[in-house]
């Protein structure tokens, strides 16, 4: 879908001493609006492509062997010894390497790590795996740059906890322009080791792991999509970032354009024109925050079973009564824009005086028109990524029908309509 240019917002907040010591200066759990700012410039979520057969770790074997049958490697993690006494339904799901083989099991593990605030580890794992699958050198460089700024740079959003020589080595190699496929291998080994020794064992005792055990046979029997397809989680995260950006853009637009224009008692434009131009954008913005709040809730509780289709059904009424009229008014809005702003010196001057950065008002006005398409695209992707057994499927199907119906209510005549 075509996106208007996001408005630049300061993406970090910092405060003297805190920064050098690695403390964040935000006093509380970041509120929604802060989260916006933090994440605005990031497409953090990479589509995880855990390859089914990739061995993530080189097995360490001492070269000398000589004893009878006792040479099998002992792996970290819960051992088979215990299973004899307490048979486990997921016998083969024992090591972190197993979990890292499937995007579904990764999603469960990720859900657990989010709760214990250590998701940067698994996100880094997924980002590196994605990086390793890239062939094009230019794209590789770009992706490596992203990985370094998000996961390795001091105060990066998801800075990983590894020792400085390893970190420096990767960064220096990158800065020397020697981006190779294995530039992050050593760091990844450290991160996997960290997850393995600290968090994996407690994961195996968590409710998420229990859920995963139940699903494991289905995963194994390929009743669910396994392989390079984008998992639901990745699609959801992407959608979430999109929605966040959308709300933030709206909020900036309203604060910096709409509100100033409505001031001065209609000196710049009459109330009538104002209404023609911006229509119900304020209500749309309010709704987008409600919607995002619910999404945020889902994001925090995300696990494999989480549904999202229900959200669209819950907000059916808002979607219909806000977006359709806005869309249908758009032609008038553009006319008003041309007459009252573009060809109106005082309005233009006013805008120039009050708005420091250039904002493309036309494309900002068009933002809400792109939403229905974005929803449809998201729902389609989710349907594609979900197995027919997933509880979300029925919601998604119904939501898809609803969105299609709603779109058909939009007048075909409006020209600047969106394209998916």
């Amino acid at each position: 879908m075509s996106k208007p240019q996001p408005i630049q917002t300061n993406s970090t907040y910092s405060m003297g001493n805190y920064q050098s010591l690695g403390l964040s200066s935000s006093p509380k759990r970041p509120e929604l609006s802060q989260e916006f700012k933090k994440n605005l410039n990031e497409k953090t979520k990479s589509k995880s492509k855990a390859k089914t057969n990739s061995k993530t770790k080189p097995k360490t074997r001492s070269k000398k062997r000589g004893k009878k049958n006792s040479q099998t490697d002992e792996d970290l993690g819960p051992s088979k010894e215990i299973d004899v006494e307490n048979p486990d339904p997921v016998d083969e799901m024992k090591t972190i390497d197993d979990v890292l083989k499937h995007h579904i099991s990764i999603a469960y593990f990720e859900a657990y790590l989010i709760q214990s605030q250590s998701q940067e580890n698994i996100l880094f794992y997924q980002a590196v795996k994605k990086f390793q699958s890239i062939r094009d050198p230019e794209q590789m460089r770009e992706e490596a740059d992203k990985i370094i700024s998000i996961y390795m740079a001091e105060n990066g959003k998801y800075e990983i906890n590894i020792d400085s020589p390893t970190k420096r080595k990767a960064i220096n190699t990158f800065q020397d322009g020697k981006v190779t496929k294995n530039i992050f291998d050593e760091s990844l080994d450290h991160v996997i080791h960290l997850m393995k020794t600290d968090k994996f064992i407690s994961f195996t005792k968590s409710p998420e792991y229990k859920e995963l055990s139940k699903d494991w046979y289905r995963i194994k029997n390929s009743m669910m999509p396994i392989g390079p397809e984008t998992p639901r989680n990745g699609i959801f995260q992407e959608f979430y970032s999109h929605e966040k950006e959308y709300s933030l853009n709206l909020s900036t637009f309203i604060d910096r354009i709409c509100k100033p224009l409505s001031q001065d008692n209609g000196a710049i434009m009459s109330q009538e024109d104002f209404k023609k131009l911006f229509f119900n954008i304020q209500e749309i913005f309010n709704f987008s925050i409600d919607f995002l709040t619910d999404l945020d809730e889902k994001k925090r509780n995300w696990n494999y079973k989480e549904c999202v289709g229900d959200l669209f059904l819950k907000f059916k009424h808002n979607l219909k009564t806000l977006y359709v009229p806005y869309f249908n008014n758009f032609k008038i809005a553009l006319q008003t824009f041309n007459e009252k702003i573009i060809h109106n010196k005082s309005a233009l001057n006013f805008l120039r005086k009050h708005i420091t950065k250039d904002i493309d008002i036309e494309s900002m006005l068009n933002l809400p028109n792109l939403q229905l398409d974005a929803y449809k695209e998201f729902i389609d992707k989710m349907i594609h990524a979900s197995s027919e057994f997933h509880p979300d499927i029925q919601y998604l199907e119904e939501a898809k029908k609803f969105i299609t119906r709603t779109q058909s209510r939009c007048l075909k005549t409006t020209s600047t309509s969106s394209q998916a």
Partner: protein
Amino acid sequence: MGNKNLKKKRKEEIARNELVEQELKKSDLVQKQQVKLLILGAGDSGKSTLLKQMQILYKDGFSKEDKQLYRNVIRTNIITYIKILLKGVQMLDLKLHKSNEKIAEDFLNLPDIIDSFTPNSILASKQLWNDPAMKMSFEKRAQFQLADSAGYFLDNIDRIASENYKPSDQDILNCRISTTGVKVVEFLVNNQPWKVVDVGGQRSERKKWIHHFDDTTLLIYVVAVNEYDQKLFEDNTTNRLHESLKLFETTANNQFLSNKNCVILFNKTDLFKDKIQKVNFNKCFEDFKGSNNYEEVIKFIKTLFVKAGKNTKRSIFVHYSCATNTNEIRFVFDAVQSTILENILKEQGFM
């Protein structure tokens, strides 16, 4: 007469009842009040060890799975230590016994992160550790990064290498696993629910701390005093004790914590005692003008920290410990308990 006696008796009874009731109310209060302990400190200071001690003191110790995990971690760590010491041997230009040279080569070829092992490699570790050159390398360990607990485990290598090795509580307490993220564990300490928050200590982990500052009852800040000559894991240039002090200053004075009582736990005093005889404290803290002995240096460090966290709204309690020593930590937590109790009762107007 009889009537008077009766009245007196009645009065006493009422007074006694009131007393009992008040006691009940107190204990009820104590039980209802959720206590939240926040354990903070720089990386590798011993925060998670405290949590393990609480597991021993207030829960039923370590589960079979835990033990299995630690067994594997301890054994892989041994191999890692041997490899680091072998690198030390090379660096210091020491000579291994001829019969060990081949094995040493195998070890040096291992990847940096070792996460599995064979029984044979454990036996080989044992053999190498007995080489005088390795002991020499160990003596000079300050010149390269070797975990604090390496000495403990290498001293116990015979037991750890034995086929039926099961880690003791002491082994588990000594076993270092780097923490990432946040761990919240609930304990029942003398019928009082405690929520204990343990965190990772490296810089990248600290941005997660702030989410847990609310509703803190007591802050426990752990300082590894033996670190005065070591550099940070995460930047290799900053002195660890300097960092710990600076971190304490910013954390303890954070608006959410500045009025909370605080325990500073000076940890790893055993290792500190050894080190102070070898490494001059003055080399790392130039302001220190006293003589280089345990008491004076500890006093100096204490003054620095207490000064950094002092304000009128809180009390600071100082303890010294070796966090792997269960008795010492029991003593610390007994003290913590009475502080908390006092706190609650004061808040409710009983004192």
